[in-house]
């Protein structure tokens, strides 16, 4: 079996970009009596399984994936965690 490793990618909407989904979720929470919630931002979480390599190399590659496809730099920020 090929040895694999995991990468986790968090994609969030940039500050200043309207998040209609987050607004709707916040409204729902508020109406469920969770009045303390003052803002919600909905993002994406992805788990990638990769062929084993060094952490540095894996991170470099996953960041490249984010820049090329997984995130749109016009509206989104991303964060990568390896292992």
């Amino acid at each position: 079996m090929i040895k694999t490793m995991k990468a986790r990618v968090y994609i969030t909407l940039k500050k200043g970009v309207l998040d209609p989904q987050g607004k709707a979720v916040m409204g729902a929470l508020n109406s469920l009596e969770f009045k303390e919630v003052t803002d919600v931002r909905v993002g994406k979480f992805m788990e990638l399984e990769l062929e084993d390599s060094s952490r540095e190399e894996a991170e470099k590659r996953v960041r490249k994936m984010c820049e090329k496809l997984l995130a749109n730099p016009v509206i989104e920020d991303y964060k990568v965690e390896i292992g």
Partner: protein
Amino acid sequence: MKFGVIVYPGSNCDHDCYHVAKHVFGQEAEYVWHKSHDIKGFDCLVLPGGFSYGDYLRVGAIARFSPVMEEVKRFAEMGGLVIGICNGFQILCESGLLPGALIMNRELKFICSDCFIRVENNSTPFTRTYGKGQVLEIPIAHADGNYFVDEETLKGLEDSARIVFRYSTAAGEITPGAIPNGAVANIAGIINEKGNVLGMMPHPERACERELGSTDGRGVFESLIKVLV
């Protein structure tokens, strides 16, 4: 003139665009499969509406890597005329041919309705048969038509008259209430710096025949034909 209508897996307005070019305006038209590298002989490429690749990940995100997009980019660089309608507009933004991005509608709903847009710039190859400030009634049909762009880029678009269509009232007033989807600055359509790539959310191809309610979309095709014939 010859229109090339790009067909992605999931396109669903390709037939409408083809029909309008060929049968309403009597021009040559051909479908171009997204895997094709052959776009020789076309005067205008149309990126139609639909849900390319299921719009997975983000609208237009996967379609931009279709093999044909390399050719579309090259064609645009050489000054070829490209129009992206709805999903086509989203693909043009994702591919960097147009600035900004289209995100989920403010009210989270898919909106299918007629709307009014005002022609802000009628000196483009896509709008020259319209009058400046003319109000058009053209349908929209999208879930992600909420145009976003950062303030600096927006200013650039405004200063260089690159906002071609804005959502307006029937009387042509640009008001926040006229925006159906949350788009910044009422933006319904923009053009690139060079003036040969247009993206718009409303569907002009659905407003070319009286039977369909409005013929206000005809001007887009008439302008193109006038430029190229």
